């Protein structure tokens, strides 16, 4: 019973996040909402596995937890460097000075 209440609460939280994703004035709000919905989906999928009696389906939640932040990194590089190809390593000290 409580698990069903938990799932209902999580769905409400996701709905509120979707409102932020749709309304969000700047793009960063949308990325934030997308990332937060991703984490909530991980929990929702794990809970659905428990609610409907197949807790063995945690692999889907596991893969989501792993891959969720890749899109956020791509968006970060899109906004900051306007390219997906540049390495995020520290520029060597010399080049840093006159960079």
């Amino acid at each position, binding site marked *: 019973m409580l698990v069903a209440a938990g799932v209902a609460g999580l769905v409400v939280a996701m709905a509120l996040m979707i409102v932020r994703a749709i309304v969000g004035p700047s793009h*960063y709000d949308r990325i934030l909402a997308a990332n937060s919905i991703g984490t909530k989906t991980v929990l929702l999928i794990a809970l659905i596995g*428990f609610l409907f009696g197949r807790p063995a389906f945690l692999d889907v939640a596991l893969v989501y937890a792993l891959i969720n932040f890749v899109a956020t990194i791509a968006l970060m590089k899109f906004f900051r460097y306007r390219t997906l190809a540049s390495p995020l390593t520290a520029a060597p000290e010399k080049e840093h000075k006159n960079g």
Partner: protein
Amino acid sequence: MADALHWVGGGLVAIGAIWSIMGAVGVLRFPDVYTRIHAASLTDTGGATLMLLGMAFLAEPGIVTLKLFFVWAFVMLTTPTASNALASAAYSSGHRPRIGNFEFMRGNDSPEAATKGESRP
């Protein structure tokens, strides 16, 4: 004993859900991006910990509990990283946080005053 664990697990899951709702309300009501990032990522990791702990109580010990631990570990690793990346991207591309903009507190809630601090990307 078994249904005691069941109730504890269910309770933790429910508290985790309430935690997430608080975070979602926070994301809706906070004025600018950085406070929203703060609200979202804190309640994400907090809610995730509570819920996954609750589910660990619900599940019979074994492979499922191990998978729950892995899900918890990866959520703990990735969500703060994503928020860190997002905040640094927002800041470095000129999105300034709204500090000390109290006009909206003094009652003249004009939209111009509200967005003074927030530069359009």
